[in-house]
């Protein structure tokens, strides 16, 4: 038969060689990508570690690198986390609940779905322009924490809605039917059974969305968060700065000291993000255990 010819045999060897080469190439590429990203993190840490001390955490910005710190930025970021969480979580989860549990499948809900998917892809800087025009100017909230928080909330709303909807969709229909067959209203069913079951998934999505808000820089630059703030905000109407703004400001200066300060700021930012992710994992594990 033609298949057993020597030519075929040689071809097969070549094919196997090519196959092995390809597999190895893919593996090498993957590991170098991971390695590259590891280099990034290690580099930043090495650059900034020597500047990272209590004085750095507890000082306001300064023209003298040795005296500069990120107190105002860190506090501003913590304010942002709380405000954005207070605004975006209720609105986003409510919208997800409405779309999954109440909305009739029709043109309008389809339109809203497409709209949310597209909003998720709008560049963050466009949200910044929106925030500048609506919150800072139109509602005259000025360059305040609340302007920033509202802008960031709009930015992460699509992410929260999409993640929450996925979590809500994972709740088996049988649980809803059980509750409804007992004469529960839609909302009683949703509140007592759907929401608790979807909670871990929602929390994970929400915290990931919040960490995105924490790391965003461009919208805050647009709405005018300042980089030289020598006071702590006392309330939502105060002006503020935030970690990414401070990092951007330092990184864009030519002096090496300020760039190292930026690296130290990045470490702090990454730690905040890491803590939030750890919280998400903790909440998920704890709730899962309780439900078992």
């Amino acid at each position, binding site marked *: 038969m033609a298949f057993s010819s020597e030519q075929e045999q040689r071809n097969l060897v070549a094919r196997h060689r090519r196959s092995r080469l390809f597999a190895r190439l893919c593996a090498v590429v993957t590991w170098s990508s991971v390695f590259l990203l590891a280099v990034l993190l290690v580099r930043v840490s090495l650059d900034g570690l020597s500047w990272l001390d209590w004085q750095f955490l507890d000082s306001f910005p300064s023209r003298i690198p040795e005296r500069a710190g990120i107190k105002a930025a860190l506090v501003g970021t913590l304010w942002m986390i709380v405000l954005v969480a207070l605004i975006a979580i209720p609105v986003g989860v409510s919208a997800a609940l409405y779309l999954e549990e109440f909305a009739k499948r029709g043109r309008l809900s389809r339109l809203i779905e497409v709209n949310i998917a597209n909003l998720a892809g709008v560049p963050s800087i466009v949200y910044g322009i929106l925030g500048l025009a609506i919150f800072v100017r139109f509602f005259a909230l000025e360059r305040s924490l609340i302007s920033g928080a509202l802008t960031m909330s709009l930015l992460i709303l699509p992410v929260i809605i999409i993640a929450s909807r996925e979590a809500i969709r994972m709740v088996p229909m049988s649980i809803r*039917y059980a509750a409804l067959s007992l*004469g*529960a209203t839609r909302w009683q069913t949703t509140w007592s059974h759907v929401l608790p079951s979807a909670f871990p998934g929602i929390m994970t999505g929400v915290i990931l969305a919040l960490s995105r808000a924490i790391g965003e820089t461009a919208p805050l630059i647009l709405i005018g968060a300042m980089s030289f703030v020598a006071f702590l905000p006392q309330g939502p109407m105060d002006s503020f700065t935030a970690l990414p703004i401070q990092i951007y400001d330092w990184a864009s200066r030519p002096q090496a000291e300020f760039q190292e300060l930026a690296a130290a700021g990045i470490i702090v930012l990454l730690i905040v993000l890491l803590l939030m992710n750890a919280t998400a994992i903790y909440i998920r594990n704890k709730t899962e255990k309780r439900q078992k």
Partner: protein
Amino acid sequence: MDARENADAAADKKKGTEAVLDLQDVSVLYSGKPAVRNVSCAIWRNRITSIIGPSGCGKSTLLRSLNRMNDFVDGVSIEGKILFAGQNLYGGDVDPVEVRRRIGMVFQKPNPFPKSIYANISWGPSINGYDGSMDELVERSLQQAALWEEVKDRLHDSALNLSGGQQQRLCIARALAMEPQVLLMDEPCSALDPISTAHIEDLLFELQSRYTIVIVTHNMQQAARVSDYTAFMETGSLVEFGETDQIFTRPEKKRTEEYVTGRFG
């Protein structure tokens, strides 16, 4: 709230002579296509009625239309009338939530809430404003469902730790806690092993004199064993309805005879 009502019913001398549900020319359509066609029959008080028929004959669809669970399926519409104590279930001024408070349901697969055994029972009554002793109600419901002895020491354990058969009895107890006028069961044993099935059937005998039950089953022996009345459906139509003895021993229609003797289906 319904306790008195039920006690009244139990004392009622003309037990079983009264139609709780009266189906008049009922059709159920899925986006315009009929799944159930022109069914007329009555569900008698304190009797067990079973609905049998080959799979896909529309028996579950018909059952779900009796407590308006079909409302949650997109594109379902109903024609005809279902009278519940004289009121049309699908009348314009009817609140489906009120309907489901009074007509309970047990599903094909056990579907306990991922909460404690106690909370599974107590949730329905509590949202519906039950103000008696919850502990008593939980105990009574579990006893009626023949589950009390097995779980009385671990009421606050998760219901998900129970076996499949226990879970299904818990779901029955949960429905009974609402003291429903009618209890609908949608193939309640199809996901269970034979021993659990026997438990549930025993339970049905227990409940027989006190509750009005409609049970959908694909298991003819089960229908013959537990029910007073049997409805045989095929391709969406009600072929024959009558007392169970009569349906299984002297069916009037040829198709019924062929089905109950196992010649098809």
